[in-house]
């Protein structure tokens, strides 16, 4: 149990961050992480060789997917406006906060599978192979989802940027 403590504990903040970015709700995300940790404790000895990080993210991701499915089945719908960026962005300067809120609202508009890939790779620093394991898809799928996620995020940003340019011109 000692080695588990040493290997798992440092990863809890990252698990929380991933859960919250996916769920966009602090309480729901922490519940999910708690569930994940309980499973990790009970299955520690069943773990195969390989990255503990990838193993934990796999458990967490599967729990999140199950949760999403149940939420969808119950017909509860979380709108984009309801996305809870307030929950996500806390300690940042005012100006920075607006930029962060903007990128998170664009992230929220991505399909769930693209959002998961982008978070795992770009924020949680999982290798492409580990991200593939977590999501249960081939590496090629990870790459194509990543590419689509980035293009889509960028398109929205350019769209917004274009608006800004027009606004600036009209000021002149």
């Amino acid at each position, binding site marked *: 149990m000692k080695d588990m403590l040493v290997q798992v*504990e440092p990863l809890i903040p990252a698990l929380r961050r991933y859960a919250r970015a996916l769920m966009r709700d602090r309480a729901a995300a922490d519940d999910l*992480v708690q569930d994940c*940790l309980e499973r990790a404790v009970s*299955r520690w*000895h*069943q773990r195969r060789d390989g990255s503990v990080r990838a193993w934990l993210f796999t458990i967490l991701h599967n729990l999140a997917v199950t949760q999403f499915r149940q939420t969808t089945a119950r017909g509860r719908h979380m709108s984009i406006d309801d996305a809870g960026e307030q929950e996500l962005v806390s300690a940042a300067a005012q100006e920075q906060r607006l930029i962060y809120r903007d*990128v998170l609202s664009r992230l929220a508009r991505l399909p769930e599978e693209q959002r998961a890939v982008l978070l795992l790779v770009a924020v949680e620093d999982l290798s492409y192979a580990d991200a593939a394991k977590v999501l249960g898809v081939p590496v090629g799928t990870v790459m194509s989802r990543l*590419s689509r996620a980035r293009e889509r995020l*960028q398109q929205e940003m350019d769209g917004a940027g274009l608006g800004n340019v027009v606004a600036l011109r009209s000021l002149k």
Partner: protein
Amino acid sequence: MSQRPITEDDLHAYVDQALEPERRAEVASYLDEHPEVASRVAAFAKQREQLRGALASIADEPLPAELNLSHIIENRKRRPLRGWGAIAAMLLLGLGGLGGWTMRSVLQENSTGLSALAQEAAYTYGVYAPDHVRPVEIRASDSAEFTKWVSNRLKQPVKVPDLSVAGYRLMGGRLVATSHGPAAMLMYDDNRGDRLVVLTRPMSGRNQDTPMMPQSTGDVAGFAWADGGLGYTLVGQLPTDTLRPIANEIRKQARPI
């Protein structure tokens, strides 16, 4: 210098700092020559920085008590498995005078049919699935010997399903005792270390052919059914949606011809 062509994947790996130094240099010099690609890559890198910045503070928050790993480990020691908690509760009820009747009715209700089999499987899972020293008595490499032995003991031909299509490998099996006589336990696992238990034993009386039903005991869930006098159950700590197709596969393979 002969260069491999730069691919879309290389550009993303460049953004994610996942390239070997040599390849990274190759991509960098490609970007120097292709400003329009370079600006796309720069935009992706900026996205990445913004996302990381926006989410960074979450990882710095102090952990709430529920996420204290030492607490979680301690709680688990006190409460080994929810299934066992249920048995303990029933036994405690049984000790009380009035409670004796309560337990009797509970036991009668569950003592026949598929729910009894599923409960036996859940208890078997609770005992052997967490075991990392000897979860099975006979290993998969000796599955022919195992099949012969349990078929003799169960007085019915027992088949060992191949679950590789579902990503599960046979670890092996053992004979377990139930209140309905001996049963054959098979254990499977996948690359993540998730374990599944298949328990099979002869069914009595009117339960010889029963359609597949979902079952759950504590946090162990699965499916049970009976075909041609043999009862089967598949249990694990996975969502029922995940277990259902595996149960169907077992049923297909184990069905008497």
